[in-house]
């Protein structure tokens, strides 16, 4: 019969694992990008205010 057991089928768990890793990293990078964008808007507003005054 089987001399050696075939490796367990854990493909789904692997996908889940990499999903978590890549997803978390992507979300973090996205959060930095969004925060930079929001600050740039604030900067533009402040520039306007300082110019008009």
């Amino acid at each position, binding site marked *: 019969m089987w001399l050696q057991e075939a490796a367990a089928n854990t493909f789904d768990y*692997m996908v889940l694992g990499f999903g*978590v890793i890549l997803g978390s*990293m992507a979300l973090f990078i996205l959060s930095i990008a969004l*925060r930079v964008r929001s600050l*740039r808007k604030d*900067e533009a507003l402040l520039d306007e205010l300082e110019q008009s*005054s």
Partner: protein
Amino acid sequence: MGPMPKALKALNVFTSLVFAVALYLVLFYAPREAVMGDVQRVFYFHVAAGWVGALAFLVTAVAGIFVLVRGDHRWDQLALASVEIGVVFTMINIVTGSIWARPVWNTWWTWDPRLVTASVMELIYLAYLMLRQGIEDPDRRARFAAVYGIVGFISVPLTFLSIRIFRTIHPVVVGNNDPTAQGTFDMTPKMKLAFFFSLFTFTFVYITLLWHRLRLQQFKERIEERKLRALTA
């Protein structure tokens, strides 16, 4: 926000390339583990993420020492940037640890010293952030955060030690039979390459993200300063 320094642009490219290579090594080059199957591939990035968490915490603690001794606010910006990255990657470490445990030991959680220590570390990080949120004066906030960062960092090896003693004297009966098991498997040379290359890759991921997050923090504080001046003008 000032223009991105050339070095950072180069680092972005380098890190992305190295990450792509690491993905290839981990998903295709490394052989499928004989017993656990494909889920073992998660292990490479699981450990690398844990390494980043520990490194981030170390940087925060050291930056904290400089905050106290030098009184230079920029070290506080570095400490905060590092903590955020540490929180993210420690969380990755814990969750992937759980995902790996499930098919291998048929449990979502093992009382493995490393996993428990990572969880405690995550709680310390989160407490660090809550402490910062609660203090309004920037100078005091920086000092208090520095102190807690140092205290927290010193407590982590002691926590690890305590759980290790716990496991050697009282091996866990339910869940995981072998108290020393880390999902032990022998690493072939190809696996070793994937493993060490992952550590290398994630170190650069850390440095790159740290630099970006630090620039964000510096930008944020400049804008806040300007807002304050605009309001009080």
